[in-house]
């Protein structure tokens, strides 16, 4: 890195290793793309591949960071303490909310009861929607977080802070 930039670095923008490694990775992807081009559903595969990145970067990320910003604004407006050294409620809402969102995303098919036909063919059982189980889980997470918050506030008060 400390060497003066050579001709490659000025023209290309980085070192030889960077070029070789990136071209190598892209070659494998290109080979796979050519191989899958004849698949009847090749377009859908590509759509899901690029869509997965877009869904995360331009939907999920703005959604959760926006929700977090909203939560903080709400707490400020309601006069919740943000002072250092005090027990703050922010993370006691953030943590269970994050866990709720994550479990919803991961176990979405079960929670919403999707894929009923394939499920029955595979398991021999009717697919029940597990929304109730998930809501119970979320309620327990928030309750535990609330109890921890109450204990922390109580302990801080007892120690005369």
């Amino acid at each position, binding site marked *: 890195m400390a060497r003066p930039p050579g001709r490659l670095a000025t023209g290309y923008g980085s070192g030889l290793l960077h070029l070789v490694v990136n071209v190598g990775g892209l070659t494998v992807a290109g080979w796979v793309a050519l191989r899958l081009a004849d698949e009847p559903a090749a377009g859908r595969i590509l759509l899901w591949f690029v869509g997965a990145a877009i869904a995360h970067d331009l939907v999920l990320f703005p959604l959760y960071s926006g929700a977090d910003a909203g939560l903080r604004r709400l707490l400020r407006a309601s006069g919740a303490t943000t002072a250092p050294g005090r027990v703050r409620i922010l993370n006691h809402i953030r943590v269970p909310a994050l866990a709720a969102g994550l479990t919803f995303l991961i*176990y979405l098919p079960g929670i919403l009861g999707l894929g009923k036909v394939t499920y029955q063919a595979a398991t021999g059982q009717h697919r029940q929607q597990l929304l109730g189980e998930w809501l119970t889980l979320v309620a327990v997470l928030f309750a535990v977080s609330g109890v921890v918050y109450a204990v922390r506030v109580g302990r801080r008060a007892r120690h005369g802070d």
Partner: protein
Amino acid sequence: MFGLVLLIGLPIVIITGLLDYAAYGPQFGQALPRDVGWLRPPPFEWPTRPDWLFRVSQGLHVILGIVLVPVVLAKLWSVIPKLFAWPPVRSTAQLLERLSLLLLVGGILFQIATGLLNVQYAYLFGFDFYTAHYFGGWVFIAAFVSHVALKLPRMISALRSRPFLAELRQGPDDTRPEPPDPDGLVAPRPGPATVSRRGALTLVGGLSLLLGGLTVGQTTDGPLRRTALLMPRGRQPGTGPNGFPVNRSAAAAGVTQERTGPGWRLTLAAAGRTVTLDRQQLLALPQHTATLPIACVEGWSTRQTWTGVRLRDLAAIAGAGEPASALVRSLERAGLFNQAQLQSNQILGPDSLLALKVNGVDLALDHGYPARVIVPALPGVHCTKWVATIDFRTTAGG
């Protein structure tokens, strides 16, 4: 830190994924997808010992894959400023790097999404899962190797830049932003810290533990299975000796009571000769009992006690002393897994059975009555149910 966890965890998911491909017997053209060119794991004969091999390797693939989701999301969160870097392309090098990153990020999210939907039977994507997950895996592997090759020194210097344990002792109020870094990932005007670094790591670790706790139950028998609260295999479908989970019901396979009743016959073939046996004759042969796990590609598994005739005894009856392979066909007419070819070691192993009973009673129809194959460490769908014929071959491949 998240990078380090992924650097250790993702290769395990990758290797167990490739092992899964190897377990299906690619040498017989029965690993899916079939035609993969040079992008294949090195060929080797899938062993039958230890009998928990496939249960553990595939269980790890699925459970670790799920457990790492919060780490992947945290890693993406920590590098998100890169996405909005402006101008988006400053040089050829950067263009290549951004393309590689699209393969890396798209690849891991694609693998997570298709994997999660497959283990939960929701084929929302409308393409062939095996093809997409296999080749998507290779695209990700290539992008992952490139990324590690270029960024490993950066990760090591970042981890060395601060005393790790001292950082972990700080509360949120002592947490200070990092100094500006060469990649421009540190916020230029950070707000006051609301979480300590210890807190952030605990949060991600805790979420991983939560997901692990909600998934691992699908590999257990007994009451613990219920802990896989939101997974398809989170409950025992019934009670009694046949009450364990089913993969593909008889109704879905089009296998009816009439075809499995007293008229059912097992046909053994070897070197142009055939032998036909009914269920009574099979029950009169020497019976062997083995307690073996059976594991599915979806990561769930169960352990049961199976009783039946050793496959090697059937090979001897058919007149194939040392078979190189055997093609087992089911009564099921359609379906991707209505037949499976077994390797020599999978036929000759002492616990390789044509099972007639489970836990001391006749197999239920959904579990493969009148007879099913049980071979240690063989993927569940290759333990063919409702067996109709076994064709022993003395030359490999054939």
